[in-house]
Structure formats: structure tokens, C-alpha cells
């Protein structure tokens, strides 16, 4: 079976989540991550509109929705909270991992995801709080946009936050943001290190690169 880019990204990110983690997933690719988790794993999802213990989507009549407004379920032991407690958890460092999409990420881990001036202004929603407050920020995005690199020396779009991304996962590579720059950790078997470097505007530190975990060529 040939995996689509977004499935590759979601599958690889699922391997970054661990038992006991409280996780917030953004809209888009991040919502695919639970598809690749072992049901036995004890991972709890928080949804910023007011759920701890968000479960799968449902067609049943319900007033429980996720942050995308889709009807959803709650797992046993879950709770409903108001927006104040929800964002106190987020900013207060109680969320272990947040997974979000981005339009650009740069060599310092700054990211842009909420506005393309003059074109698209959806607003930041909860993204600015999530990236500032979560203990680990994982960026889930395609490596390029219409062939143009999205991992840049410096972001060109207005920032969501400065220096907050910790890990970037694309269909081509896994890249860690460290104090000395971006470290290329893993490359998908369909690509070479050279391919990744060619499609990345930012400089990548290359040593001890391994094939992307969980992927077959």
C-alpha cells in the first residue's frame, strides 16, 4: 500500500507519543495521528474547546464537539472544562505534546501558521497559546508547498511564536530543533539526504542520519 504524504507524517508522529502523555492535536494532518496509535497505549487527548479525554468522531446526536466543530466522543474518565481552565492547562505547561500544522518553520524553531497577509486571515485560534505552553511542540507539515521549501532560514510570514518548535516531521524527514540549529535525524527511504537538503532552505546539521522509523521503501 502506498501511503500518502500526510499518512506518513501522522504515522511517524504517533511514534513520538508515549503512555501518560496529555496531547493536543491541531486541525488537519495532526487529527490523523490517533489512527496510528496502538489502542492499548494510554494517551489522553485534550481539545482546547473544553475536553480532556477526547475520543473518536461520531455520527450520533451529541453536543460534544472537537476544536474543529466536529461531533466527537469522550473516553471513560474524561471531563468537560471551560475555556479558562483549558488554556490554563495549555499555557501552564500541563500539556505534554502539541502537534500542529505550519506554513513555515525556521532554523530557530520559530513558526508561522495563522495568517497570509492580504490573502488568508483565519486567525490564530488557540495555536499561539499551544506552542508557547506545551512541553513539546511537534510540527506536522508537508516538506514543501508547490515545490517551495517550508523549512526556512527565517520565516517570512507573521509568526505564531518565536523559537517554540521542537520537532519537525514531514513526508521526507524528521528534524529536531536544537540550540545550535536544525538536526536532520531521519530520512524517509524514498528520498536521499541530498533530496532533503535540496528541498530545505534552512541549513541542516547532518550526522548520524537514520531511515525514518516505521517506514518501508
Amino acid at each position, binding site marked *: 500500500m502506498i501511503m500518502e504524504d500526510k499518512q506518513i507524517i501522522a504515522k511517524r508522529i504517533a511514534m513520538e507519543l508515549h503512555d501518560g502523555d496529555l496531547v493536543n492535536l491541531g486541525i488537519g494532518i495532526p487529527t490523523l495521528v490517533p489512527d496510528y496509535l496502538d489502542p492499548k497505549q494510554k494517551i489522553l487527548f485534550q481539545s482546547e474547546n473544553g*475536553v480532556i479525554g477526547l475520543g473518536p468522531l461520531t455520527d450520533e446526536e451529541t453536543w460534544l464537539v472537537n476544536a474543529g466543530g466536529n461531533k466527537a466522543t469522550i473516553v471513560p474518565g474524561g471531563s468537560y472544562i471551560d475555556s*479558562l481552565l483549558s*488554556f490554563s492547562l495549555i*499555557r501552564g505547561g500541563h500539556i505534554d505534546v502539541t502537534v500542529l500544522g505550519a506554513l513555515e518553520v525556521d532554523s530557530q524553531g*520559530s513558526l508561522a501558521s495563522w495568517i497570509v497577509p492580504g490573502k488568508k486571515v483565519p486567525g490564530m485560534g*488557540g495555536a499561539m497559546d499551544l506552542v508557547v505552553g506545551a512541553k513539546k511542540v511537534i510540527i506536522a507539515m508537508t516538506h514543501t508547498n508547490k515545490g517551495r521549501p517550508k523549512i526556512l532560514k527565517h520565516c517570512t510570514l507573521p509568526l505564531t511564536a518565536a523559537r517554540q518548535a521542537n520537532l519537525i516531521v514531514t513526508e521526507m524527514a524528521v528534524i529536531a530543533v536544537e540550540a545550535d540549529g536544525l538536526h536532520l535525524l531521519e530520512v524517509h527511504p524514498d528520498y536521499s539526504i541530498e533530496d532533503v537538503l535540496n528541498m530545505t532552505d534552512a541549513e541542516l546539521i547532518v550526522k548520524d542520519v537514520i531511515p525514518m522509523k516505521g517506514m518501508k521503501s
Partner: protein
Amino acid sequence: MKKIITKEHFMELLKDGMTIMVGGFLANGSPERLIDIIVESEIKDLTIICNDGGFEDRGVGKLIVSRQVRKLIASHIGTNPTVGTLMQEGEMEVELVPQGSLAEKIRAGGAGLGGILTPTGIETIVEEGKTILEVQGVKYLLEEPLYADMALIGGAIVDKYGNLRYHQTMRNFNPLMAMASEIVVVEPFRREAVIDPEYVVTPHPLVDYVLEDE
């Protein structure tokens, strides 16, 4: 019960130029009947404070489509294309606020605080024009309080005293807004006789009016 309000009485409370907080998250927990009455009232030049711009046919989106809103304060406007159109035409002002900061600004307004300090928005365009304070070596943005003339509360289970609890994720911004407005009007999702004091989320002294059933 003195707090029950008819549609006609509610209409009498509405004035041009009011600032109104509306509960709900993508219209989940928004008081749709109260919003419909405002559309019918044709009051204008409103400042609306809500998590988002709703949809064109749901939530605060209906007030935007009917061109009654002069200014929208929200965290997200992507689900209602009319918001973007009116913003570009200069017909409506939009102030985008990070969602957590919006919640805290409303809390500050309702809690008698002069604002809150948050790391969210530092080194982004959100910090433009705002005071930055350093506390214990960390930079924070001063986000000022929000207070409104009226709050419209939805998603609430209401008891005979006017105490509220909320159903599922319809809670969201509703309890915060019930603290931060001059007049608080509730549209019941459901009624029950008496809410156990252990489970009251919004105590009845905060509630001014409960909309009568259809």
C-alpha cells in the same frame, strides 16, 4: 420566577452600539434564539466578543451577515467567509486575539483585574501597541480586561433559581462571559428543578434573565 424574560422584553434591552459577549465555540453553545431576536431587532453598530466568527447561518455569524456588527473581537474567523469580506471592504473591524488571551481578558473583566500577563504573542504582531513587562526574568504581554454591556449565554442547564451548569462542550466561554457583563441573559438548553449546589457552575446572582421557552 422574576428572571424569566419574554422576547419582547429582551428586545427592549437592545440598543445600537452595544458591546455584547456571545458564548459558544464554532456556534456550539451559542444561544441561537437570542441571536435570532437581535437579527430581528435590527440594532446596529455592535461590538461582538466571541471565540470566533461562527458560520454564516449559525452563531454570531448571523449578526455579521446581517451587517449589524461594527467590530468583532475573536480568535478565529476562518469558518465565516463574510467576516473576511467585510473586513477587506472596511465595513467591519476585526481584532484577532489568541484564544487563551481572549479567555483571560474576559476573566480579568469579570474578576475586577486590570489585565493579565501572558507569554502568548511575544515577538509576534500580537504584541504591537501593547505593554511588555518582565517578571522574574520572563517577558509577558499585558492584555487588558474586556467587559461588555450584555452577555448572551447558551448551552446551559437552568434551575428554578437561575443557577447554571452546562451541557458537554457547550460550556466553553459561557461561564466566563457570565462574569464580565452588565446584563446576563441565558437561553436554556434544558431546565431542571434544582441543580445540586456541588455542581452549579454559574451561581444565580450572576444571571439577570432567562429567556422564556418557545
